[in-house]
Every structure is written in structure tokens, then in C-alpha cells.
């Protein structure tokens, strides 16, 4: 027979203001199995915990119910308390009377009634709890980083620095990400390449880091400490061990139709290409979509011109299978498509560009070699209009756009405006803004410099439409502070375009069973307290894949994610969750339903001798067996099993039914 203690927490006034805690404690006295009840201001505090420990000893308790906040908050705390007093940690149940009750109800009487029911339900379940023991599983001391932008590079460098092996999988032919495309970077205006490329080189030369570029993660199985991933290394049709990166082939290639994605499609590249001069690895890649040889079997000019003999038209994709203890998401972002914002004329007028295109137009390694020329006629633009918040901050019911602030565009627009005025003092630069959002160290000072020292004209208001008149772009917008509608005859319009997660993030998240929010940003385990971990154990978040950020913030988060990975990899074993599924071999008929629903591949079928009442001696049957090291206790199989053979330890069908009965009493 269980001897249960019930501990009702006030949570200061969080619970006590809405729930009559003393009444809950009093009501629990009459529940079967309950031998002790009390209430206290803060159960989780030192004083609260010692009360629990004392009661366990004094009343010889076999289990405790804590009526308090969500188990996500303090279940671990109270389990530790129970263990310290000699109880099994799984003899603890939490009745959530805060999030599920006091926080959502106003009427004290009703809330108290509900709290009593929740407490009674927890007691009913605890009556059927049995002590459970955790197992252990080994931790594979290698990490996988998906995405080789500044986030992925920084995370990998830090993990390698701690002595662990780490692989970066990057889908593009080079690492570097978006930062490699930038010209100068706020707030200090150092050149992006000068600070990024040394890190790229470090990553490539670090013996603990393996780069898989032009590669994608195809599947991931397993669980924290024990993932196994399949990586597809796509054929480059160039032997990376032979290619010297001389780029002769890229100049000779006669196929010139492919848009140069590194330059945001502002110019074309060959079918064989190296994204940029400092690419890592510095080897050529053939784009089979545009390669004449791949299409017709003719051409081969690159091969004839390659003195290293590196071109290999027969190269095949390679599949690499590797095991990892931890996985880091670092898949970054892209600017949104502006097709539906016709008012800005982006699709119509070549001189209306996105900010990322503008970075390329200002970049010494860009299509105009760093001289700012407008795309339509390569003339030097005199009047430039920047528009902030394009596609950001749109209400969820608006016809297009993103509901969030993209966070980086106020700062990079100030940067662009300042750089233009610095380089071309003969220009007029206007910025339409709704708000200027520049929190961050030295950020507001930076934006003020644009206004005060560089004479950038900031206009509070938004552009309503852009039309063309002669060779000018007529930008009509409102100047709210002057209560005017104005029209500026501009040579170029630069749209600070909203950013969104890389489109592959959604699919990668589902491979990892990690969660994403409604905008496809990766979700953190806790928005405030666990910002670099995903709710899926062993999966960590680095950089913009979790939400918009600039480089300093990205790097900080990347290092934070690395430190979490290092913490995990430094363990030799993981304690496993004992709340796993178990099949009752007497009931199982081997139908394989459970195997099909298990998202972790934890169920196998084995021929087993079955011994039991009414089973003929020597019976051998094919039955389900759960691998407890792989099972995550999600319970999908227990509801799918048509014979009722599957049960989840700690959450057995009987326990759940007892809870339902207690609620309905």
C-alpha cells in the first residue's frame, strides 16, 4: 500500500491568490493512500524542499504529489528532493495548478475546485506508480554542424578547440554563408571578407574539423549521444584532390546562362564555377543543369583546359554514414521573394534592388568591382532611396510579408547610406523608415553618425509606390513629420528586404524531430533560459536559423551552442529515460503496427519463446521488442497497438485510466 504525501505550493501569490491552497491540502487528506498533506509558500525553495524531505522520513512516505507549477519547470527539482530523502525519483507526481489552473482562471472558488481535481488525479496516478531505474547509453564524441555560415564555422571551431571531432555539412560549394557576400560590416565597418576568410581557413585546416561542402544531410536516426546521419556528398564532377583552384576552366566554359548566386543573380557564371576567390574549398564545381557536356555529351572544354586533370564527368554522388553525439542546426537565412510587393517595382525595374544585391554592387569582388553602378545602364547613381521594413512587420492577416522585425536592416541600411556618402560625396541619400531600431552596443551612435556626419536624409514614413519616368525612378511616399506626400526622383531604390529561414530548415527540423515556429525559425527549449538548445535533446541552435540576428549576436550564440555541445560530449554516458515502452509478449500478436508508427525506429520483431498461462509449451511467436536505448517514450505505439500489448512505463494505460476516472469522479 502506498503512503502518499501531498505538498501544495502557493508560488507566492501566483497560485495562492487564485487557489485556496489550504483547502486543497485539506481535501487531499481524504484521498485513499494519502497520509500527509501540507501547503507552503515556495515548495521549490530550500525551506520547501527540506519540508518535503522531513515529511518523507517522518511519515515513511512511498511517494509524493507536489501541487505546483508545470513539471517542465520543477519536476527535476522535486525528483532530486525525493532522491535525497531516499525515494525513487519516479515516485514523484506533479499536479500543475499554476499554468493549468491559477494563471488561467479568475474565480477563486472554481479554480480551487479544479486544483483539487488535478491533485486528486495525480494521487490516483501515483497509487499505481512503480519505482523505475534509468539506464545509461554511451555518448559518441563527435558533433555534426548543419550549415557552414559564420554560425556553423564558429560553433565547429569552438567544439574542435575543446578537442572533439566535428563535421560541417554545407549545401553550397563553399562555406562562409551570407557573411561572405557582405561588403563592410556594422558597427565597425571592417570588411566582411577580412574577418571571415581567416576563420574559414582555420576551419579547413583544423585537423578536428571535416568539411563536407556541396553536401546535404539526407537522414538522421537515433537520439541524444547516439545519432547516426546519412550525408549525400553531391558530385562536383571535379576531383577535389586534384583541382588547384586556378579557375582557368571557369573562364573558358562557354555556357554562360547560369545566374551567379553569389552575386545574387546580378551577373552570370559559367557552368563550371568557383563561387568566389576565397572559397573554401577552393575547387571548381560543375552545375549539371547548365553544363553542355552533361546535356549533350559534347564540349568538355574545361577538361581540355584543366592542367591538373581534375575534371571527372563520371563522378557520382557519395553517401557518407557517420555517428554523432550532438547535432547543431546552423542553416541561416535568405531574403524573402518580393514578387508580391509590386508597389516597389522590384520585378519591373532593374535599378530597384534588395540590400543584399546592394552589398554585391558595393563589393570590390562583386559584379561591378566595387564601383557603384546602377544595373540598368551602368551609370553612377546620384540620388538613392533606401526603404526599410520591406516585407517585415506585416500583420499576420496581411496579404504578404512577415510579421516579425528582421532586426538587422535598420543597421545595415544606415551602413549602406553612410558608405555611399563616404565613397560618393556627390550623392543624395534618403532613407524611408517606420522606426529606427538600433539597440546594441554602439549601434544608435552609428545610426546617428549617418544622419549627423554623413547628412543622410531620414524620412519618417513609408513608400507607397515606385514608378518610372524617363530614366528616373519616381518614389512616392509620405513624410509624416512634415505632413506631406513627397515624390523623389531617384536613380536607384534599395529595399531592406525581410529575411526568412533557409527553405531547407523545415525539412531538416523534421529529420531531427526538432520543432520550428509558425515562421519556420527553429524553436528554443526555453525562450529565455535555454536559448541555444532545441527541445529535442542533443540538437542545438546556432545563428540566424533560430531568429534574425547580426554577426556579433550570431557568433555569441554559436559559441554558446558549442559550449552546450562540449558539455554533452564531455560525458561518457547519458542517463536514459526509464519511461520507455514495453510490450507484453503474451498479448502481442506481432502485427507490426507499432513498428510503423515509431518515429525513432526503436521497435524490432523477434521470434521468442512464449511462456504463460494457457500458452502451449514450446510456443515460439514473433513479437515486438522495444530497444530502451532508442525509445524516447513518446507513446505513439501504445495507442496504435490493437491488442493493448504496448505500455509506457511511468504512464501505463492503467495509470492514465486512473487519472481519467479521478477527473470524472
Amino acid at each position, binding site marked *: 500500500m502506498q503512503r502518499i504525501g501531498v505538498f501544495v505550493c502557493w508560488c507566492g501569490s501566483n497560485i495562492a491568490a487564485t487557489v485556496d491552497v489550504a483547502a486543497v491540502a485539506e481535501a487531499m487528506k481524504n484521498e485513499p493512500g494519502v497520509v500527509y498533506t501540507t501547503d507552503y509558500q515556495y515548495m521549490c525553495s530550500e525551506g520547501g524542499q527540506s519540508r518535503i524531505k522531513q515529511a518523507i522520513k517522518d511519515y515513511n512516505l512511498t511517494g509524493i504529489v507536489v501541487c505546483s507549477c508545470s513539471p517542465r519547470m520543477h519536476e527535476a527539482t522535486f525528483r532530486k528532493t525525493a532522491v535525497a530523502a531516499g525515494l525513487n525519483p519516479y515516485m514523484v507526481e506533479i499536479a500543475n495548478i499554476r499554468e493549468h489552473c491559477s494563471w488561467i482562471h479568475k474565480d477563486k472558488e472554481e479554480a480551487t475546485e479544479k486544483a483539487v481535481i488535478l491533485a486528486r488525479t495525480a494521487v490516483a496516478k501515483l497509487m499505481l506508480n512503480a519505482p523505475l531505474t534509468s539506464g545509461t547509453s554511451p555518448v559518441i564524441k563527435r558533433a555534426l554542424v548543419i550549415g557552414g555560415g559564420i554560425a556553423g564555422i564558429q560553433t565547429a571551431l569552438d567544439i574542435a578547440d575543446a578537442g572533439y571531432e566535428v563535421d560541417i555539412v554545407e549545401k553550397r560549394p563553399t562555406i562562409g554563408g551570407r557573411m561572405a557576400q557582405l561588403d563592410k560590416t556594422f558597427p565597425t565597418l571592417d570588411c566582411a571578407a577580412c574577418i571571415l576568410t581567416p576563420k574559414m581557413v582555420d576551419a579547413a585546416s583544423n585537423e578536428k574539423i571535416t568539411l563536407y561542402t556541396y553536401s546535404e544531410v539526407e537522414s538522421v536516426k537515433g537520439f541524444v549521444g547516439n545519432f547516426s546521419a546519412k550525408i549525400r556528398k553531391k558530385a562536383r564532377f571535379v576531383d577535389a584532390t586534384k583541382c588547384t583552384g586556378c579557375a582557368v576552366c571557369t573562364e573558358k566554359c562557354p555556357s554562360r546562362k547560369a545566374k551567379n548566386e553569389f552575386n545574387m543573380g546580378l551577373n552570370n557564371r559559367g557552368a563550371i564555377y568557383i563561387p568566389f576567390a576565397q572559397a573554401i574549398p577552393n575547387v571548381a564545381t560543375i552545375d549539371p543543369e547548365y553544363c553542355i557536356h552533361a546535356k549533350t555529351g559534347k564540349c568538355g572544354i574545361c577538361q581540355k583546359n584543366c592542367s591538373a586533370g581534375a575534371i571527372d564527368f563520371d563522378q557520382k554522388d557519395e553517401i557518407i554514414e557517420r555517428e554523432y553525439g550532438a547535432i547543431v542546426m546552423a542553416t541561416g537565412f535568405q531574403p524573402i521573394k518580393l514578387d508580391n510587393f509590386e*508597389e516597389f517595382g522590384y520585378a519591373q525595374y532593374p535599378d530597384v534592388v534588395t540590400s543584399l544585391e546592394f552589398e554585391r554592387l558595393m563589393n570590390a569582388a562583386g559584379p561591378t568591382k566595387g564601383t557603384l553602378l546602377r544595373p540598368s545602364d551602368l551609370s553612377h547613381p546620384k540620388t538613392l532611396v533606401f526603404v526599410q*521594413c520591406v516585407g517585415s*512587420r*506585416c*500583420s499576420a*492577416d*496581411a*496579404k504578404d*510579408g512577415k510579421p516579425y522585425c528582421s532586426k538587422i536592416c535598420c543597421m545595415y541600411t544606415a551602413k549602406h547610406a553612410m558608405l555611399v556618402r563616404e565613397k560618393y560625396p556627390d550623392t543624395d541619400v534618403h532613407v524611408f523608415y*517606420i522606426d529606427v531600431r538600433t539597440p546594441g552596443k554602439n549601434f544608435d551612435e552609428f545610426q546617428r553618425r549617418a544622419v549627423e556626419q554623413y547628412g543622410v536624409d531620414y524620412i*519618417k*514614413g*513609408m*513608400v*507607397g*509606390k515606385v514608378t518610372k519616368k524617363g530614366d528616373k525612378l519616381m518614389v*512616392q*511616399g*509620405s513624410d*509624416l513629420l512634415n*505632413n506631406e*506626400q513627397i515624390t523623389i526622383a531617384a536613380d536607384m531604390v534599395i529595399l531592406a528586404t525581410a529575411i526568412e529561414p533557409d527553405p531547407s530548415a523545415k525539412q531538416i527540423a523534421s529529420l531531427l524531430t526538432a520543432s520550428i515556429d509558425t515562421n519556420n525559425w527553429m524553436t528554443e527549449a526555453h525562450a529565455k533560459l535555454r536559448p541555444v538548445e532545441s527541445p529535442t535533446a542533443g540538437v542545438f541552435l546556432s545563428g540566424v536559423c533560430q531568429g534574425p540576428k547580426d554577426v556579433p549576436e550570431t557568433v555569441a550564440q554559436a559559441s554558446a551552442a558549442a559550449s552546450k555541445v562540449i558539455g554533452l560530449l564531455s560525458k561518457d554516458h547519458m542517463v536514459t529515460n526509464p519511461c520507455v515502452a514495453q510490450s507484453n509478449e503474451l498479448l502481442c500478436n506481432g502485427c507490426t503496427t507499432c513498428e510503423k508508427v515509431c518515429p525513432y525506429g526503436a521497435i524490432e520483431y523477434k521470434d521468442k519463446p512464449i511462456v504463460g498461462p494457457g500458452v502451449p509449451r514450446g510456443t515460439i511467436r514473433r513479437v515486438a521488442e522495444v530497444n530502451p536505448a532508442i525509445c524516447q517514450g513518446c507513446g505513439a505505439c501504445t495507442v496504435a497497438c490493437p491488442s493493448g500489448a504496448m505500455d509506457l512505463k511511468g504512464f501505463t494505460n492503467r495509470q492514465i485510466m486512473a487519472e481519467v476516472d479521478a477527473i470524472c469522479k
Partner: protein
Amino acid sequence: MHDTNKDMAEQVIRMSGVNPRKCMKCGKCSGTCPAYDEMEYHPHQFVAMVEKGRIEELMASKSLYKCLSCFACVERCPRNVEPAKLVEAVRLLVIRQQGKNYLKAEDLPALLDEKIPQQALVSAMRKYSK
């Protein structure tokens, strides 16, 4: 806020189905409005003034009859506020009053012009009188 103004603001909000609190004061509506220069109060001001309950001022303004009902502001608003619907609701508040038709049948002959399509007159009658 004056009580009658408050009641009227509520009425305008109810009639138009617009929630002026959704406005983030970006001014895109006024940046796009083709009748801007003719209007005393511009689309974003309609939103702000309804929010503050300044209905009587709006009712007295000629802006009500300068709006083209082109719905450009509705189309462009990033927050889906639909300012033109407020203009329309305030106009309705005015013309629904006794004797406040802005366009009367007897005014029509003077306006007749062979360049104006008949349909425009019909819709003007619909828009400016009850």
C-alpha cells in the same frame, strides 16, 4: 475623450470593421493615396483620429468627399488596417443624418457633362447620399 465622440468612434469602428489599434503609423497608406493633396486629413490621420475619438473633426472635413475609394491604402497597408473603410464609415455617419446628403438629385443637371459616364453619376449618388 468626449462621450459622444467616444460613442461615435465606436460606431465608426463597428460600421467599418476596422481596428485602428492595428496601425503601426508607417504612413504607407498616405504614401500611396492619389488624392493626398486634396485631402485635409490623410488616410493615416483618419486611422489615428478615429483611435483618439476625433470624429466630429473628421465629419466636418471635406476629405470625406475627396477620397476616391480607390482602396490603394487598403491594398498597401502592411497591417491590414483598411483606412478607406474608415473614411467611408465617417461619410456614412454624415450623410445618414437628416438633410445631410452631399449630392442631391437636383444637383445632378448642373453636373451633367457628356464626358462623365452615366455610371459615375449613379455611383456618386450612391456614395454621397442615403
